């Protein structure tokens, strides 16, 4: 409808949202704690504004304050909010209800929780129209239209489904349809894709971007993911500890950042081509401050490498650092030349795959042969793993990637013995077959295989102290007692960069990063040979993630351990892994050296995964001249992007032939994909792909004669 409108900034209309000097406090145990301080920003008509920040930065609090949805103990203690010129803070109950019903819509992270589980999806959308005054029948008709607009292929069927019958991506579409049904002036998206898989995330983001062009809605996009915000937003505000520390046009903030925190955040994300052997990641030292902590001076001073005395005494005002671009930093002029962590080489290990000369035969530590795993039996049997054959080489990192439900975690748990594989499967550790479960597994094998779980809150017993938690593996697996136990404990604590004073604390008293360090110390306590890292950084903030990845890489170099590294974050996998296995519906579709798997030619599924992930790569080279005509940064809109449509099929009823054929953009017209499952065949030395398309043709299709990155 309004696709050809001029630039939002140039539009003659008043802005949709004006936030000025907003302060929000929460009352905790009788004390007021400021969680948002002096935040000001403006979202113009049809503009998309991104709020980025790590956990506790106050980004969701800002969103809740806008529509007065703050928790009981929270209140706006200063500043003003204007939505279409109206002030929600001074509204009567009825006006507020109308504002929430008509003017502002919100979409949250968990689509499952935003929908009423006992009402069919269609009814829930129709309700929005009924509130707007339409009759029952026409509301239902409009609901079907709405579902079509959010690109649901079969709206009729989705209308009749209950929320639990919808997949995550489908449910989020329904939520977006509901949010847009009232044609709001302002749409608030709070981490709308964080709970979704990469390929689904890409679809939802495309959908939102497409809808923005059709509708006259302004968007406030809240996310911790810089790449997503860079892709989706015209303007960006970076929040840290409740303060907006940098604000400006998206391409300026990301390519010419003028605040040390923004620069630090951008630097600690592994870039394409950056690998563990090429040096450490830049991590921001220290930890995020507690929400509500009272700080004098600059909120970032504690962790800033450019800090001067002035920063600690007086909070910096917003400095103009360009057109519409402000940064709250006294040293904003020096930020572009901000020193990173000096490039340090990892201590070279005495042996290991990384340093092994070309041509030396790698030596497998673990061999997995025709591994199958079926959950349940009879009608309800679900095949989680089908004929998996993988060798894990000594000292390497094998990355395991795939969407949720692909069997990554089941594979790891089966290897560890937490889940018993189907009879006939063979897993050997140094040529010795492993017992199928943990029962009766000899101490030596227990010691050899350990894991770092995704969520340290769940992996650490919350009632035990750090000392107890780290001592347990030393006692059980290493058989240490008394003085030698204490000695090793101190060593271990130091090697995960923690301090002795942490020993008496319980997990609940530690930050997320420290908790994960305790979990890593536990995994390394018994002197393991292979450690499974199951999404070890996905529950952590970006600035903490880099430090944990550095630690893992350092420990690997020092202890000569092998990693089986599971992650959905391809950037992280690429940074750490020597080889990659791509899983889909319990089958290995591709297996090979990291640079070949990422560089291509690769399996069409790998290709789709790679192109689904928004990334910040290429941003530094961005010059103003390279911008697209409409002024939006062309950061991630790669032309080669291939789209996956549809949902991941159910593992209980996998497609015939090649399991990927239902979503494959390169499916062959001969029909062979639908009928025959392609074998996992070696296409280059050490590189296996399970696809009917010959490698040379893939190479041409994917235009990747020369490996990228």
């Amino acid at each position, binding site marked *: 409808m309004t696709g050809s409108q001029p630039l939002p900034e140039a539009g003659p209309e008043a802005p949709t949202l004006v936030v000025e000097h907003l302060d929000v406090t929460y009352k905790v145990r009788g004390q007021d704690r400021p969680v948002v301080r002096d935040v000001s920003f403006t979202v113009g008509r049809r503009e998309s504004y991104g709020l980025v920040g790590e956990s506790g930065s106050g980004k969701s609090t800002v969103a809740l304050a806008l529509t007065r949805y703050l928790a009981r103990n929270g209140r706006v203690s200063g500043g003003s909010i204007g939505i279409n010129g109206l002030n929600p803070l001074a509204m009567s109950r009825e006006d507020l209800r109308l504002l929430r019903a008509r003017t502002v819509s919100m979409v949250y992270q968990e689509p499952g929780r935003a929908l009423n589980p006992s009402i069919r999806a269609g009814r829930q959308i129709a309700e929005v129209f009924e509130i707007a005054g339409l009759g029952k029948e026409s509301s239902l008709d409009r609901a079907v239209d709405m579902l079509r607009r959010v690109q649901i292929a079969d709206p009729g069927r989705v209308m009749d489904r209950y929320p639990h019958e919808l997949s995550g991506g489908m449910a989020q579409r329904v939520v977006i349809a509901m949010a847009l049904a009232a044609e709001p002036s302002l749409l608030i998206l709070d981490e709308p894709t964080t709970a979704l898989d990469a390929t689904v995330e890409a679809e939802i983001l495309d959908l939102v971007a497409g809808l923005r062009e059709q509708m006259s809605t302004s968007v406030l996009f809240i996310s911790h993911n810089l790449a997503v915000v860079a892709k989706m937003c015209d303007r960006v505000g970076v929040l840290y500890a409740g303060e907006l520390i940098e604000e400006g046009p998206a391409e300026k903030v990301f390519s010419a950042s003028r605040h040390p925190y923004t620069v630090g955040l951008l630097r600690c994300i592994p870039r394409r081509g950056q690998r563990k052997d090429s040096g450490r990641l830049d991590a921001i030292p220290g930890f995020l401050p507690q929400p509500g902590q009272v700080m004098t001076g600059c909120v970032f001073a504690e962790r800033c490498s450019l800090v001067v005395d002035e920063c600690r005494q007086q909070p910096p005002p917003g400095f103009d650092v360009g057109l519409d671009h402000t940064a709250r930093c006294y040293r904003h002029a020096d930020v572009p030349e901000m020193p990173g962590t000096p490039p340090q080489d990892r201590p070279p290990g005495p042996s290991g795959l990384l340093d092994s000369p070309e041509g030396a035969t790698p030596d497998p530590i673990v061999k997995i042969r025709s591994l199958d795993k079926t959950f349940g039996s009879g009608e309800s049997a679900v095949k989680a793993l089908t004929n998996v054959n993988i060798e894990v080489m000594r000292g390497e990192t094998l990355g395991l990637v795939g969407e949720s439900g692909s069997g990554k975690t089941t594979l790891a748990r089966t290897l560890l013995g*937490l889940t018993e594989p189907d009879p006939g499967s063979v897993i050997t550790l140094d040529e010795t077959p492993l017992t199928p479960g*943990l029962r009766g597994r000899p101490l030596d094998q227990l010691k050899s295989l350990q894991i770092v779980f995704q969520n340290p809150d769940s992996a650490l017993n919350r009632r035990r102290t750090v000392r107890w938690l780290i001592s347990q593996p030393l006692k059980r697996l290493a058989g240490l007692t008394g003085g030698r136990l204490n000695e090793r404990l101190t060593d271990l604590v130091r090697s995960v960069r923690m301090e002795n004073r942490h020993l008496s604390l319980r*997990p609940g*008293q530690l930050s997320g990063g420290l908790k994960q360090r305790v979990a890593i110390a536990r995994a390394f306590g018994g002197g393991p040979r292979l450690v499974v890292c199951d999404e070890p950084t996905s529950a952590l903030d970006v600035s903490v993630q880099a430090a944990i990845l550095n630690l893992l890489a350092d420990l690997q170099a020092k202890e000569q351990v092998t990693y089986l590294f599971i992650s959905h974050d391809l950037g992280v996998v690429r940074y750490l892994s020597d080889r990659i296995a791509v899983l889909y519906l319990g089958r290995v579709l591709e297996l090979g050296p990291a640079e070949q798997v990422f560089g291509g030619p690769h399996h069409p599924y790998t290709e789709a995964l790679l192109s689904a992930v928004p990334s910040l790569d290429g941003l530094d080279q961005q010059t103003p001249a390279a911008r697209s005509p409409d002024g939006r940064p062309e950061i991630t809109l790669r032309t080669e992007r291939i789209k996956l449509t549809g949902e991941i099929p159910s593992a209980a009823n996998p497609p015939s032939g090649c399991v990927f054929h239902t979503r494959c953009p390169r499916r062959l017209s001969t029909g062979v994909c639908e009928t025959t499952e392609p074998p996992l065949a070696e296409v280059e030395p050490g590189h296996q792909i399970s696809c009917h398309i010959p490698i040379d043709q893939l190479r041409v299709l994917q235009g990747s004669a020369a490996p990228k990155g």
Partner: protein
Amino acid sequence: MSELTATPSAAPGEVAVAHAFAAPPAQWRLLLRKPTFGIGAGILLFWLVCAVFGRLIAPFDPLAQQLLAKNGAPSGAHLFGTDDLGRDVLARVIVGARDILLIAPVATLLGAVLGAMLGLAMGYFGGVVDTVLGRIVEAVLALPVVIVAFLFIVAVGPSSITLILVVGFIFTPLIARTVRTAVLVERQQDYLASARLLGERPAFIMFAEILPNVLPVIVVEFTVRLGYAIFAVATLSFLGFGVQQPTPDWGGDIATNYGLLGAGYWWETLFPALAIASLVMALNLVTDSIEQVISS
């Protein structure tokens, strides 16, 4: 910030806001600040003092009969009046706290310990163990409590020990079921897998890893059951299977005197009944506050 950081030297933000579980002192402060807890604990304390020092506090010997002053209405000399043997009702109410406050907690403790062990085993092992024990628990729960208690007491003979065993065994399956549910939640947590990967034995995992995490559930269950135990003991005494006359006992005294209600001697029944009610109410107030603090 200092009260939130466990170590004064910690860098800001390093030590996250102490979780209520991790810092018992903070929990105690929250508990003490609740008025309901204060009232409940006050009444409870009063009855505990009565139970321990009853004979010293009581204005009369609870067993001393004054046949000339029988069925005397409450007066300056006998605040709660006298019963049909002329015994002082106030003295009997005060001293009557002793047996019930001994039997009920010990019985509940027995039920909680047995129930916790059973629940841990059912929840942790699952499968056949859970099915078999679960059926037995259900079978026990299906039996009418009073009849089982009757038969047992008639067979063994009434005594404090019998009462404790009966009430304890009756509570065991109830507590086991609650604990089992809590254990099932814990079983989803990765720390159990982590312990198994260290080669820990089931007993260790159950008692050293899971038990501390389900302890709050057991504590709440204990206090809830304690209220029921008071009822159960008073009921059994009322029916003549508990504390035997002439020992002062609330349930027993109600049983001896309720026949006289028709004659207008209400005080002989009302005051022991009020004693039971106040004790149970006090327990419920304390239980509610503990539950709120634990779940917050």
